């Protein structure tokens, strides 16, 4: 087996091992954290889980037409005040 291949295998074992160890610890730490917060903290109005980063499904509190109108108004306002 080539030098590079043995290095690559070593790296895989150490790397995947570590990734799993780290994330398993994180799973338990997270569960513990949620338990502690749930026990000691007063109940608060919880936010339901939402899509991260994409925010594609943001609640449509404003209908698209209104948003469009406001978008145009803002664009118009900007176009007047921008250099």
């Amino acid at each position, binding site marked *: 087996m080539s030098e590079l291949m043995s290095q690559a*295998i070593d*790296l895989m074992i150490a790397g995947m091992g*570590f990734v799993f160890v780290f994330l398993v*610890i994180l799973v338990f730490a997270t569960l513990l*954290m949620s338990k502690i917060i749930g026990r000691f903290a007063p109940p608060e109005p919880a*936010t339901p*889980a939402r899509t*991260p*980063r994409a925010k*594609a499904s943001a609640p449509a509190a404003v209908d698209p037409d209104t948003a469009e109108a406001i978008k145009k108004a803002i664009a118009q306002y900007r176009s007047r005040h921008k250099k």
Partner: protein
Amino acid sequence: MDKLLTLWTGSGLFNITAGQVVMIAIGLLLLFLAIRKGFEPLLLVPIGFGGILANIPEAGLALSAAENAVHIAKPEVLAAIAGILDVSYEAGQAVTPEIRDAFKAAFKDADYSTLSMANAAAQDFGYANGMLYNFYTVVIGSTIGPLLIFMGVGAMTDFGPLLANPKTMLLGAAAQFGIFGTVIGAALLDWFGILDFTILEAAAIGIIGGADGPTSIYVSSVLAPHLIGAIAVSAYAYMALVPMIQPPIMKALTSEKERAIKMSQLRPVSKKEKIVFPLVVLIAVVLFLPDAAPLLGMFCFGNLMKECGVVERLSDTAQNALINIVTIFLGLSVGSKLMADKFLDGQTLGILALGIVAFGVGTACGVLMAKLMNAMVKEKINPLIGSAGVSAVPMAARVSNKVGLEANPQNFLLMHAMGPNVAGVIGSAVAAGVMIKLLG
């Protein structure tokens, strides 16, 4: 007339090489893919444009002052730089291609102080660093660019779905097999004599499997800066192709019945949990993997700014003005590494080939891990969300949802897939830290 001749001999048409023509065509292709096909345009528009700029003949936008001076090759300047770089060249000697190659090799091997001295000498003679070279040095050479992007991504990430079901983090761990499997793949190519790679290069290529742009750029800037162009292009292109790469693998590894598994709705997650979670991740980094501190530290910082609710100004800036500014410069800087003589190389083809392997292996391992977990626990998870563990946020989660809907039109997996999706970001940052620790 003299002056017109100078203009003509200094023009692109007079000097352009075949390699530069090809690279400009590649730059235009990247722009086409970004603009018409929607391939990760935020990065590929600046990368493609930067690639074209980097290949403008005679402009030297991606070269250091010393490299520009060697390109112009005035005898006295060349002699001064040769002295610093320890290249054997006498003032007045003809500048043969061999001598140019000797200079190039010397630039590649020189250490930090020597390069600084060579640049200072060239600047004494009036040469300047190219614009893109400066961008690269400031934004990527210092590693600050990818870290700030990571901070902004942190400020846009919602860990809610992950907190509601933390065991899906394991899917994000399994999918990192794509990273290390690709390192093995590179070693195989090397073993069979198809291409030559060092372990540093193999590791940098592997990180494409992390399916996370800033992590890829960060790791390759540390381990193999000369490959950063090919690695970044490969990473962003395949992230854009996730909706084509993943579904066949997902379907091959799962039965119709598995794909139709409905998962129970996620529990609501409290604000406090969301605030504390980035600190829990940070403490884990402190205790177990200091080398992941820059990446995960900035990621957690961005997320804490978002969730804590008292620094909205800063969070908003991190998600908008700052990340946009950095993205412009990061893209142009990556583009500066698309120079013909560095990019048009067998290694680049190898990187593109290995990149798709990386995505495939990661996808498969995520799905298989989900099936393994189902074999061990009572409450079944839909194995389709395993593929989201590769990251490629949020595209991979959407793919899970879409394939799930095909199997069962009432099956909404998006939220469930976001858990492993963001866990994949953490997983590949951890893998990056391990690689830098062991090799860097």
